[in-house]
């Protein structure tokens, strides 16, 4: 993103529509974080486009005083790809939910990631279908009782970070709705990244899946469970950083720093060209239970789809000149009658 600082306040990014989420919903916090961040970022407001699918979270664009489209269920990454390809000068955001992105929209998501189109994808993972009032989603834990799984869900959930890494994503991060400071850091890094940036937000749905992330948010347990990944720093956690992560021949494991020594602890390298370690880190948790990595798993450079697309057009024009219609019509040979 081309950062050309303007003087904005959060209010400049608030639309005139009343925000219509349930009181207490985690979506409010993320909305505030994003609006505040954009004001700071300072990119011209008219350059931002928010594309969403369908779901509670997908109402987001209505509340942003930017260009936006509340599209159809699951298709936001495809539509946003068209916006970005058509006009690479825009800053295109995708707002989506766990059902929208991972259930009906799974295919568009993984293809956007592999193409590395310049989209910032914010996935609001509340582990439930909120808008349709409480059915299990592809991130709901097995055994979860919901309206469509009265005896417990029998679907094994996706780990969105693992899935994204398996789909060749160049930027993958995870954060928490209520952790506004961390959210701001992650948003800044995502905006900085050229290519598809994928951010999983753990977002509380206090109506249909309250406290899903309580282990990460309650005062009593959060220090035990938030494992922050900071590029260039050893991965430590616990109230006194007494635990750490080590990478060994079986993947990533939690170790006590005092036992293994600080040198065995993995120094986080989000820029590792290979996603192997990032993937191993993503396996530390199955959903937000127990120690759970938060932060940027991966942030690497790879040619961006739009750049390649525009590059080919420029190359073709350099070779053949900008197209001439009359020539085109004659390009397969003509004959003349009189």
């Amino acid at each position, binding site marked *: 993103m081309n950062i050309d600082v303007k003087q904005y306040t959060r209010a400049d990014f608030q639309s005139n529509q009343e925000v219509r989420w349930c009181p207490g919903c985690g979506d409010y916090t993320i909305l505030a974080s994003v609006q505040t961040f954009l004001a700071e970022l300072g990119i011209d407001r008219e350059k931002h486009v928010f594309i969403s699918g369908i779901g509670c979270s997908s109402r987001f664009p209505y509340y942003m005083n930017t260009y936006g*489209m509340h599209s*159809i269920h699951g298709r936001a990454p495809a539509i946003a790809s068209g916006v970005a390809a058509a006009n690479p000068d825009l800053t295109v955001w995708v707002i989506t939910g766990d059902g929208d992105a991972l259930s009906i929209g799974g295919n568009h998501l993984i293809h956007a990631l592999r193409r590395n189109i310049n989209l910032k994808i914010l996935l609001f993972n509340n582990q439930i279908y909120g808008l349709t009032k409480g059915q299990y989603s592809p991130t709901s834990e097995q055994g979860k009782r919901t309206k469509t799984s009265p005896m417990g869900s029998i679907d094994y959930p996706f780990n969105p970070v693992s899935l994204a890494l398996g789909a060749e994503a160049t930027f993958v991060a995870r954060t928490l709705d209520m952790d506004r400071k961390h959210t701001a850091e992650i948003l800044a890094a995502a905006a900085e990244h050229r290519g598809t940036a994928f951010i999983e937000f753990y977002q509380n749905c206090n109506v249909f899946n309250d406290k899903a992330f309580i282990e990460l948010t309650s005062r009593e347990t959060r220090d035990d469970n938030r494992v922050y990944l900071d590029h260039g720093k050893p991965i430590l956690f616990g109230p006194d950083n007494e635990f750490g992560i080590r990478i060994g021949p079986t993947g990533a494991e939690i170790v006590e720093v005092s036992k293994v020594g600080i040198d065995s602890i993995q120094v986080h390298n989000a820029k590792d060209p290979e996603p192997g370690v990032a993937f191993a880190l993503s396996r530390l948790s199955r959903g937000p239970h127990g120690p759970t990595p938060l932060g940027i798993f991966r942030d690497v450079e790879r040619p961006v789809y739009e750049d390649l*697309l525009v590059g080919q057009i420029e190359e073709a*024009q350099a070779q053949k000149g900008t197209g001439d219609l009359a020539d*085109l019509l*004659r390009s397969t*040979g003509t*004959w003349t009658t009189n």
Partner: protein
Amino acid sequence: MSSDTETDARPTPEKIDRVVIRFAGDSGDGMQLAGTQFTASSAMFGNDLATLPNFPSEIRAPAGTIAGVSSFQVHIADWDILTPGDHPDCLIAMNPAALKANLHDLKPGALIIVNVDAFNERNLAKAGYESNPLEDDSLRAYHVLTAPMEELTKKALVGTGVKGRAVLRSKNFFALGLMSWMYSRPLKPVEQWITKKFGEDNPVAAANLAALHAGYNYGITAEGFHHTFEVEPAALPKGEYTNISGNIATAWGLIAGARAANLPLFLGSYPITPATSILEELAKQKHFGVKTFQAEDEIAGVGSAVGAAFAGNLAATTTSGPGLALKSETISLAFTLELPLIVIDVQRAGPSTGMPTKVEQSDLLFAMYGRHGEAPLPVVSIASPADAFSATMEAVRIATKYMTPVILLSDGYIANSSEPWKLPDVADLPTFPVTFTTEPNHGDEFLPYTRDPETLARPWAIPGTPGLEHRVGGLEKHDGTGNVAYEPDNHQLMTELRAAKIDAIRKDIPPIKVHGDADSKILVLGWGSTFSAIRAGVLNARRNGRSVAHAQIRHLNPLPPDLGDVLEGREVILIPELNNGQFARMIRAEYLIAPRSFAKIQGEPFKADEIEEQLNEICREINS
């Protein structure tokens, strides 16, 4: 060896005014290529022509079987012809299966040229022949000439550097050379094409050239081939012509439409037979600034196009029936967003996967009604390969003027067949430049759902425009502001406004041209690719003294304002369609009249004869 020298050796050819030739062989035999090149040199020579390729199915059948036969038919004439011909005058059969599969279509007394080398026991058995038709006298109604094409090709290729199994790949050029001899076609265009395609120094180029000349020379020297023919250049209206196939013309129509609208062109598409070559053609035209996005599926194809339209491109998506089905939900979104979008459906035989390489017109009612909710769309149809260019431009005009998706119906026959097209003067093409909204339209506010009083179109303000930030979406929206709205009256109003906007396009449709005997009590009413067969059938019937009128409808929704008048007072309205009577059903509902439906669902276009026969029958009935 240059081709020019040979022509001296020609006996004087018999002048004929038209001929229908079919090249037939195994899918691996390169018959499409031979046919296309024969067509190209005929085009260069100045004949009028029409072609009909026929592929077995998407995948190779075992070599030598009937299922594996591929053919290419071309009709060349010295006058303005319309169809690829009903019954070939000449068949080139590269193997027994090709003979067997095509024999029943031939004119009595037709010329058959066979590759005798392929008539061995194994191939005869594979084709299901119990005895060799070349020997058992079963072909006595025809004029059969044989050539040992494989042996001669092998010989010709000695020294070209091409060896082994690859040698036989050139035998289609042998056949082409021989046919060029027989029908007095110049070799030069083919020679040029070979050199350009394979590169001067490529042994394959040398091999194909050698085979081509060997075939030609075989005509000179071999017995039986001395009676040659010539079709003189057609007296087409003065002008510059190219030989165009429908999908290429459609692709070019998109480029021209984008130019006329002054917009960059974006195509979001997923390959599907028989639409793929539009994507392939546009992928080649990057220097026009065309962006092609090969999406992961049809939904993403149309989705990316909706995104590109929102961002201010002329957005299109190309597909066939199964893909149109997948796009339905997104088209309904585009409809309510009121963004321009060109949805091109190159129809093929359904239902489901059906017969992907075969033609059908059975997506008409799907195009009309194939969306949930009240979501009427303009539907425009293409009548022939050459018509594709202007029909596509017309779709672009409607889409951008009325801010709406448009469905453009083509089909597999139009897609792959070709005809001469008199090139328009680019300067004379219509233009309809789009003006994006850049200023607030309501005090200092921008209301995205205000409407132009005349067209009812909403303004198009694209991301990047300062001050016009706004949101659109699939929920019902408030008249004017576009904000989400659930009020009962607003929904009624918006539904009616959207319908009225589409209906208003009717005023913008040019008058119907009625051909033939305009006031006849018999009207043949067609749409789409039935054009050429109907026109030819009607011509023939009229030549035989029948009085018949013909109208081909381009705008299927809304229907032309004068269609009611055109239908008025006819005794019989015949609607030939490659479906079960879908347009006939639309006409019934619209005008409360009962047309006579002539339905053909065989994966093949109408023959002119079939139309004429229907007309004869109708005349008999009326008069009896």
